[in-house]
């Protein structure tokens, strides 16, 4: 990774959670055991769509070792969950709408007994027609999946007059793109332990991306006050957006309350596939036209998203896709319309990229197809249409000034110059190279509650305690917190106690999603550091009887400006004789656009991707041999973490492009485990992945480092797709690109005579 050191990255550090991870000593929440603990298991629907006629739990209840069986009758409060709209039943009463719907759950003395008990629960169904595509769900006589119909959400954006725009075009490309249902495939499947406490309280030891939100949702379901629910939500073995919504928590909680014993649920992979949310499959039709100067002047977009049976974050994902449908390009006339449709397929929801990955594939596909039509270099064509530093955002709203789009394009252009001359290796192999770029909004967007906050204090042990309501699911938030706080306060890592992921100990910081963590940690520390330092120095000055202006915070304690080798007072000594607590709190909102544009973002990051593929014409196998990204997201905080996010996001999208599809047929999963749902292995990735960080921000940009959790995953698919085209002249418009279609395409064409346009 090429990059100059900044104040955060000049010191090499290993992650605070690293040693426990490489030794296996770290206890994940699914590793926990408690005394008298029971094992829970959930009964899911046998049909994608059916009325429930009866649920008989008698045999299961009588099985020795079974301590509780629950159905809808046992839900103490609201029988529903969902981050925005609680329309997913915790336990279905009269109807099931997808194969992941829960009908009953058991708690038993061993996992084996729970497994047997589940098989003894008899549910009688009356199957209903399966709406296994948005098209079917939109038919006029389709059965209604929810009271208000089969449309979850519609979103649109209009600018100029797109029809008039097309009239002036000299060339138009119209294409429909299909993107698959991608599974997060976090290695740790959903699970944890829920422990009943005194006075009807519970402790929930289950991974999530927003502890306070789980607390709110569980309070509603269990009908107990939020204060009685403690959520411990870290560490987590991967999430990528997939564990933000509730999963097993309601079942383990109800079982724990009913049995007054701790209950553990750890889903098997198959259970995880069937019940877990996925990335929205979308059908995206784009019609894009250019004038005689090569300027894109009209862009029409229609998005149909398959949101599955329940809402979760479906509306926000569609809004994000609509917002990003023009990407980093400035287009005079735009008409974007999106609809998110309920079906009897698996529930779609939050996933790294949040709708951006889907539209980036389509948009960059349009750009490359237009460049080919115009016989223009795809980089020059992008240059002509790219947004500039002072341009407004994609919904016409004001955003933080940035030249990121141009910076990543020029960065990737120079990489492309160096690498595009790669030789064909052997007769039956073809190589090709492609590039793509994108811009991606961080935070939840205008009009959405997006609070953040943190707390700095000197705790009883003499540690500087920094607390956030964030979760560690692998992304490295702990390392980011350590680096920012040690650097901004001038203290050492040993002076710190980092507290996250436990609602009984941390202030609300909002969700650990939307690439917001790094950004919000930085903002919080900027807000707190001066006040906190003053408090510390004031207190030290009193104790030492030295004027404040001669004292400063440092590694291990308080130093004077005269004497540098040792602190005059350690933090431990300071806290011992301090009469009042030293605490600084902050709460604020993620920065949003000042314009009243619903969902509009303010801080955007940018990526440029270059992919090189080698295609085996005998097998149709596409191998990615180079995957390099240039990222503009402000200063790097943790070099290893940053690189890991971009590489990991890139490879996840390599899988999206070439391998991954959670395939469903008539509402049932065909791919139920990792033998048929394939994610990239080490054999499928380039041995060296390139990451270049552009760290400069616009002059006067006060918003600091941006999060990079998502950006590395967004523009990979179109770059690989263009590389495939560059190699064999085939335009894929459906992901994942299969070997069969490659063979078919290269067989139909005389590959060797293919004219490579616009390399």
């Amino acid at each position: 990774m090429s990059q100059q050191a900044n104040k955060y990255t000049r010191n090499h550090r290993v992650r605070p959670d690293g040693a426990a991870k490489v030794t296996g000593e770290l206890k994940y929440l699914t590793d926990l055991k408690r005394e008298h603990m029971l094992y829970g298991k959930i009964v899911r629907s046998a049909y994608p769509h059916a009325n429930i006629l009866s649920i008989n739990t008698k045999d299961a209840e009588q099985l020795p070792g079974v301590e509780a069986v629950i159905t809808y009758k046992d839900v103490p409060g609201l029988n529903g969950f969902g981050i925005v709209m609680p329309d997913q039943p915790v336990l279905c009463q009269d109807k099931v709408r997808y194969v992941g719907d829960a009908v009953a759950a058991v708690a038993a003395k061993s996992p084996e007994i729970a497994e047997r008990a589940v098989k003894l629960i008899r549910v009688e169904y009356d199957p209903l027609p399966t709406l296994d595509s948005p098209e079917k769900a939109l038919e006029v006589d389709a059965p209604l999946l929810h009271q208000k119909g089969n449309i979850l959400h519609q979103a649109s954006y209009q600018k100029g007059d797109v029809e008039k725009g097309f009239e002036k075009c000299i060339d138009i490309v119209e294409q429909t793109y299909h993107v698959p249902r991608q599974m997060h495939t976090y290695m740790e499947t959903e699970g944890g332990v829920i422990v009943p406490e005194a006075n009807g309280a519970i402790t929930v030891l289950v991974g999530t991306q927003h502890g306070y939100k789980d607390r709110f949702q569980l309070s509603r379901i269990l009908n107990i006050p939020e204060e009685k629910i403690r959520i411990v939500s870290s560490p987590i073995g991967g999430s990528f957006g997939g564990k933000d919504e509730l999963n097993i928590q309601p079942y383990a909680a109800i079982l724990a309350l009913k049995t007054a014993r701790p209950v553990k649920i750890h889903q098997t992979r198959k259970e995880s596939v069937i019940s877990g949310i996925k990335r929205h499959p979308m059908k995206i039709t784009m019609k894009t036209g250019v004038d005689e100067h090569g300027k894109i002047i009209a862009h029409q977009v229609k998005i149909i998203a398959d949101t599955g049976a329940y809402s979760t974050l479906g509306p926000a994902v569609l809004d994000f896709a609509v917002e990003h449908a023009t990407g980093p390009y400035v287009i005079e006339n735009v008409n974007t319309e999106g609809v998110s449709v309920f079906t009897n397929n698996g529930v779609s929801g939050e996933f790294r990229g949040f709708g951006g990955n889907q539209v980036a594939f389509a948009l960059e596909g349009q750009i490359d197809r237009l460049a080919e039509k115009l016989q223009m270099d795809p980089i020059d064509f992008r240059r002509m249409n790219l947004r500039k530093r002072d341009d407004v955002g994609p919904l016409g709203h004001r955003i933080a000034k940035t030249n990121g789009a141009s910076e990543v394009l020029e960065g990737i252009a120079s990489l492309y110059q160096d690498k595009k001359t790669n030789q064909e290796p052997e007769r039956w192999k073809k190589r090709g190279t492609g590039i793509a770029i994108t811009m991606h909004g961080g935070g939840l967007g205008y009009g959405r509650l997006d609070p953040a906050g943190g707390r700095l204090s000197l705790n009883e042990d003499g540690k500087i305690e920094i607390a956030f309501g964030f979760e560690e699911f692998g992304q490295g938030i702990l390392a980011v917190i350590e680096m920012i706080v040690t650097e901004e306060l001038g203290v050492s890592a040993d002076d710190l106690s980092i507290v996250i992921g436990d609602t009984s100990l941390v202030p609300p910081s909002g969700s650990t999603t939307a690439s917001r963590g790094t950004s919000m940690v930085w903002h919080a520390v900027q807000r707190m550091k001066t006040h906190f330092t003053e408090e510390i120095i004031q207190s030290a000055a009193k104790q030492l009887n030295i004027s404040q202006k001669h004292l400063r915070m440092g590694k291990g304690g308080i130093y004077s400006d005269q004497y540098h080798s040792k602190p005059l007072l350690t933090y431990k000594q300071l806290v011992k004789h301090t009469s009042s607590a030293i605490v600084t709190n902050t709460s604020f909102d993620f920065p949003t656009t000042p314009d009243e544009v619903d969902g509009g973002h303010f801080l955007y990051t940018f990526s440029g991707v270059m992919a090189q593929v080698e295609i085996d014409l005998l097998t149709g196998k596409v191998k990615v041999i180079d995957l390099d990204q240039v990222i503009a997201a402000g200063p790097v905080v943790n070099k290893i973490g940053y690189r890991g996010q971009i590489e990991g996001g890139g490879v996840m999208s390599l899988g999206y492009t070439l391998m991954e599809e959670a395939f469903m047929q008539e509402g049932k999963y065909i791919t139920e485990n990792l033998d048929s749902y394939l994610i990239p292995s080490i054999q499928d990735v380039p041995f060296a992945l390139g990451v270049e960080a552009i760290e400069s921000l616009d002059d006067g940009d006060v918003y600091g480092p941006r999060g990079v959790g998502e950006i590395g995953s967004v523009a990979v698919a179109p770059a690989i797709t263009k590389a495939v085209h560059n190699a064999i002249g085939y335009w894929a418009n459906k992901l994942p690109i299969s070997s069969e279609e490659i063979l078919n395409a290269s067989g139909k064409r005389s590959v060797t005579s293919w004219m490579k346009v616009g390399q």
Partner: protein
Amino acid sequence: MDESRTIDILTNKSTDRHILISFHMNGRMLELSVEPTMRLIDIIRGQLDLTGTKISCGIGRCGACSVMMDGHLVNACLVMAYQVDQSQITTIEGINTNNQLHTIQKAFLEEGGFQCGYCTPGMVMAVKALIYENSNPTEEEIKEALSGNLCRCTGYGGIIRSVQRAIKEGMNKN
């Protein structure tokens, strides 16, 4: 852990279906009374509470449960109790001596060979098995050896750099 102990597995089935197995776990002799088809992963995690070894796919596709059995890398979800009898099992808990990090573990720590860490114990075991057999593997040999261990976070970049570092630091002593 005792030098030798017998643990009765909690089950409501009659114990006459159980067999007695004895094996070495991380250098210590253990005796267990278990159902012959119990999975090694359930013995390790469930009975012995050695949770460093993880479970993810349960069908031998992801390598999260990789352990060494008689010097070979195996998926603990595919090995049954009767096969464990008279064997030597090493889990992640058994590879660092004297509380010192193993060279491979140090390399993972320094090079960012992990993020969420859930695949890491299995990955470290796979790297150990590789280097045990081949102290200076080629790129292809590294890929071959780790192809049964899936990581969803890193994209393998950090893992490859970790392996290269571990090799470079001349670790060849088991």
